[in-house]
């Protein structure tokens, strides 16, 4: 059973949450009961396919061994080579899952949510390398990795942020507010995913007119698919965040009115934020820092542009190794680099002045540029 995809899932979730809510109002939290909730949800998600369940368990054991080994190693030494090797080993299961379909081998390694879990383990290893994360007990690691509301598709939380929520139990009033917001988000999710996204898919995308590949149908499809993608994923995210809130965890947001973005940089601060912030912090910033330190390239803008290229290329590949995902990544890399260049030149030339008219125009232009990106992403073009 895929989480948040059926009425029965929500029924089970509702029943499982009753004791959580009762305890929440009493300013209590039962680790034992919460673990049971996570176990039931994880079993629902994976037990229907034994391959998935086994892969999931093996994956978790593998990652926990790596993280613990590296934590112990890092207390003694701090070699770059060892760090890269451990990160690579943590990425191996994901790489295999992405490569098997390309080699046409049936995928028995993958399971729902593997790409999202990998972000969690890799960030722990990187934080340890930085010295930002000194110790993490096995219990803490498992609580973070196995947190079931976000297991299938995020949002991607950060270990230290998550840990803070685990250590504090909300007061009655705080919990009341969390519960209220949580329920509110779940209902917003119903509206987005099961009504708006469903209708767009059923009444527009799946119609024979759109399915026939004419230039006009592809043009309409581009906008319909973009809206569908937003409402479907923002709906899912609302479920995951809402369920987290009810369990007392303030899982970060994923969307902030992305179609109102004024430019492409603004868009990446509003669309799938937990993913783009992850790439910003763990790929782009680290790469730029490393390059600046090595001083191989003098021009700081060149360094930044290579960083953008790396970020979006990896983000594209992360979705899958199919050509359209790679193209999607490169398209956004090109947009970010061009925009950054334009923004800088505009400070001197002042061709695009800031006022109400240009702001509205910027939003309109950005919207169409983004939708074209999603058309590439959809795989309809190639």
């Amino acid at each position, binding site marked *: 059973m895929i989480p948040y995809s059926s009425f029965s899932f929500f029924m089970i979730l509702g029943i499982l949450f009753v004791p959580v809510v009762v305890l929440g109002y009493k300013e209590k939290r039962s680790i034992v009961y919460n673990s049971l909730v996570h176990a039931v949800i994880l079993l629902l998600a994976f037990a229907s396919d034994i391959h998935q369940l086994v892969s999931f368990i093996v994956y978790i054991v593998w990652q926990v061994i790596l993280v613990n080994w590296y934590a112990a190693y890092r207390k003694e030494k701090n070699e770059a080579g060892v760090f890269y090797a451990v990160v690579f080993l943590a990425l191996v299961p994901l790489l295999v899952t992405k490569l098997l379909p390309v080699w046409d081998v049936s995928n028995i390694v993958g399971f729902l949510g593997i790409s999202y879990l990998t972000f969690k383990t890799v960030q722990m290893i990187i934080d340890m390398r930085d010295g930002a994360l000194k110790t993490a007990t096995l219990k803490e690691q498992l609580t973070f990795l196995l947190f079931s509301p976000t297991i299938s598709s995020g949002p991607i939380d950060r270990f230290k942020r998550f840990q803070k929520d685990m250590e504090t139990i909300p007061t009655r009033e705080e919990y009341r507010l969390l519960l209220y917001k949580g329920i509110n988000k779940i209902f917003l999710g119903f509206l987005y995913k099961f009504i708006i996204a469903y209708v767009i898919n059923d009444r527009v995308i799946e119609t024979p007119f759109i399915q026939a590949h004419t230039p006009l149908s592809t043009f309409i499809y581009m906008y319909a698919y973009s809206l569908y993608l937003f409402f479907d994923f923002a709906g899912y995210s609302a479920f995951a965040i809402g369920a987290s809130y009810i369990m007392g965890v303030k899982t970060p947001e994923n969307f902030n009115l992305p179609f109102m973005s004024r430019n492409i940089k603004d868009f990446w601060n509003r669309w799938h934020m937990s993913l783009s912030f992850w790439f910003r912090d763990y790929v782009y910033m680290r790469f730029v*820092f490393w390059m600046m330190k090595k001083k191989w390239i003098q021009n700081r803008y060149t360094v930044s542009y290579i960083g953008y290229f790396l970020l979006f290329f990896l983000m594209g590949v992360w979705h899958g190794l199919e050509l359209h995902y790679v193209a999607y990544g490169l398209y956004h890399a090109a947009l970010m680099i061009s925009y950054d260049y334009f923004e800088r030149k505009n400070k001197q030339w002042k061709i695009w002045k800031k006022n109400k008219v240009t702001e509205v125009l910027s939003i309109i232009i950005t919207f169409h540029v983004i939708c074209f990106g999603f058309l590439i992403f959809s795989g309809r073009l190639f």
Partner: protein
Amino acid sequence: MDMKNTVLDLLEEICQTDVVKENGDIELFEEGLLDSFGMVSLLMGIEERLGIRVGISEVDREQWSTPNKIIAILENWV
């Protein structure tokens, strides 16, 4: 040179404005003065000029949002 002036000089160079010296409570990210690239330059400068190594994942944008906050964090850095 003391910590405060070093950080302010760095911020002035990176943000390319002396507003950061005049207003210690200015919101660097919200005002568009600092972005990811600027943040990396700042960390690099802190390491070079103050000898303090701050890992990228140790930076929380909400806590590092103004010149005064950054100075306070660095003064208490262990």
